[in-house]
């Protein structure tokens, strides 16, 4: 049989973004793959070096367009460490609220895209409809539906509007009922099980070797979740379980994500209760003095350096909806960060593509990559 290379991408329904998967096929079988990324490279790390600490937040929303608030949280945690700032506790709870709602939004969006790859058309719209409720909530307290710009160094921009928590609880109740529908539409159908069982298998050992994290790793039976293992923010005070499944295949990833949705709802109920009981400030009192008017003309050059502003290194890692994201901010005492480096979980998950794609059918590429949950904005940065 003769083999041939086909380019799946950069414009292809499977890619969910702008990247290219080169596949060598033999009939319908995959013999080799070579992912090519970089079509969406905007140089966010470079641009950040020319921006004030707060202005970088606008870039974070564009990093991953389905998990903007999670990336804001990641950057803010790291920048605050580099600048030696302590946010108030209520701000931390608001950030966790945002991150968990973002997880729900991201996973529901993933569900929609994933079933669309399998040819299930109507659950796609159910997913988009349910995500819209989460976006409505975001709009009501951050003021935007996709690019939130909500968090600030030292806290968050504003407190919740009145009546938010009741509305949020109603939305959570509605969502929990919808998760049952999702299960019926996918796991309940024989065709889904026939297509997804034992597909795209990546065992725990390979996951660790190739740096794969997030739901893909947990679906292989490894119980690693930074929210539990290395509690950042206020996750240490919240009760939840880590979703783990056996099987390491597409169905297992589906199970892990659906369970994470339910755990997120559980976390959110606790956070909402806490927020109801503990009013307080959402912005740190003691900000570095120059953060107040960071944008105005600074006068003689280098005055900040002259003032001996403390330098610092900030490193943070969070469990983003797609996996383990890290940020490293180097503060050399200027008004801009000296260097910002982000670690995108999908970047690593995608680099292992050869391990979980070769040997399956061409028709299996969309569901397998769908279960990886590719978001190119954060791969290319």
């Amino acid at each position, binding site marked *: 049989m003769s083999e041939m290379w086909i380019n799946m991408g950069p414009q292809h329904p499977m890619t969910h973004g702008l990247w290219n998967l080169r596949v060598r096929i033999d009939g319908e079988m995959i013999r080799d793959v070579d992912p090519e*990324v*970089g079509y969406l*490279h905007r*140089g966010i*790390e*470079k*641009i950040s070096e*020319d921006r004030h600490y707060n202005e970088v937040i606008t870039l974070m929303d564009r990093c991953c367009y389905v998990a903007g608030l999670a990336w804001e949280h990641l950057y803010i945690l790291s920048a605050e*460490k580099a600048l030696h700032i302590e946010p108030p506790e209520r701000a931390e709870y608001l950030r966790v609220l945002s991150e968990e709602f973002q997880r729900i939004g991201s996973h529901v969006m993933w569900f929609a895209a994933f079933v669309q790859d399998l040819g299930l058309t109507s659950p796609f719209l159910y997913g988009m409809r349910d995500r819209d409720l989460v976006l409505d909530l975001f709009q009501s307290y951050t003021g935007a539906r996709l690019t939130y710009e909500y968090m600030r160094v030292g806290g968050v921009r504003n407190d919740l509007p009145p009546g938010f928590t009741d509305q949020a609880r109603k939305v959570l109740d509605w969502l929990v009922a919808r998760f049952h529908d999702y299960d019926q539409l996918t796991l309940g159908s024989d065709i889904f099980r026939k297509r997804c069982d034992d597909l795209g298998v990546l065992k725990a050992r390979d996951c*660790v*070797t*190739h*740096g*794969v*994290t997030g739901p893909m790793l947990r679906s292989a039976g*490894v119980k*690693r979740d930074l929210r539990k*293992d*290395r509690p950042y923010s206020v996750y240490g005070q919240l009760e939840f379980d880590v979703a783990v499944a056996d099987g390491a295949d597409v169905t297992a990833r589906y199970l892990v994500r659906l369970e994470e949705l339910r755990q997120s709802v559980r976390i959110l109920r606790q956070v909402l209760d806490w927020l109801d009981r503990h009013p307080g400030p959402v912005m740190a009192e003691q900000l570095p003095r120059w953060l107040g008017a960071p944008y105005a*003309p600074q006068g003689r050059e280098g005055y900040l350096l002259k003032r001996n502003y403390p330098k610092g*290194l900030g*490193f*943070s*890692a969070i469990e983003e909806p797609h996996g*383990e994201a*890290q940020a*490293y901010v*180097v503060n050399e005492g200027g008004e801009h960060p*000296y*260097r910002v*480096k982000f*670690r995108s979980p999908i*970047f*690593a998950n995608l*680099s*292992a593509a050869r391990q979980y794609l070769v040997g399956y059918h061409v028709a299996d590429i969309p569901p397998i990559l769908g279960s990886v949950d590719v978001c190119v904005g954060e791969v*290319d940065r």
Partner: protein
Amino acid sequence: MQPEDVQRALGPKIGPRLVAVEAFPGTAGRVRFQREAALDVFHAVHDDLGFLHLSMVGGIDWVDRREVFYVVWSDDTKQYLFLSTDVPANDAHVESASPVWPSANWHERETWELVDIVFDHHPDLRHLLMPDGYVFHPLLRSFKLHEPEELEVKTRHV
């Protein structure tokens, strides 16, 4: 695991090529070593200390020198560990970590093309994010962005 533990475990193997193990908030420490010791440090950290998971490789351009840093994670102690080494700017190359952690592959490709640090014995050092044949290294300090339109200070009387 504390920085002292790391120092105790790595010290005998690496010897004087281990520059220091510093405390670094949120991690088990920051191991600074000379680049000649790179592979030994990687093997020691991977095999002896059990940091099986390489999360991130990156580079920083300090104009006169360049720093390569690695972030590794251990499932046993549930901690991160920073490794960092300096390379001179005019001779920026270091041993690749790919043989020890295959996940370093793409991270090193990215670091090479953005910060211009060559990784020796890398299996596949090609452009990743930038187009093939791109000769610049954008994350170097010498690579200037377009100047933003100068914000003139316009006041009422000018």
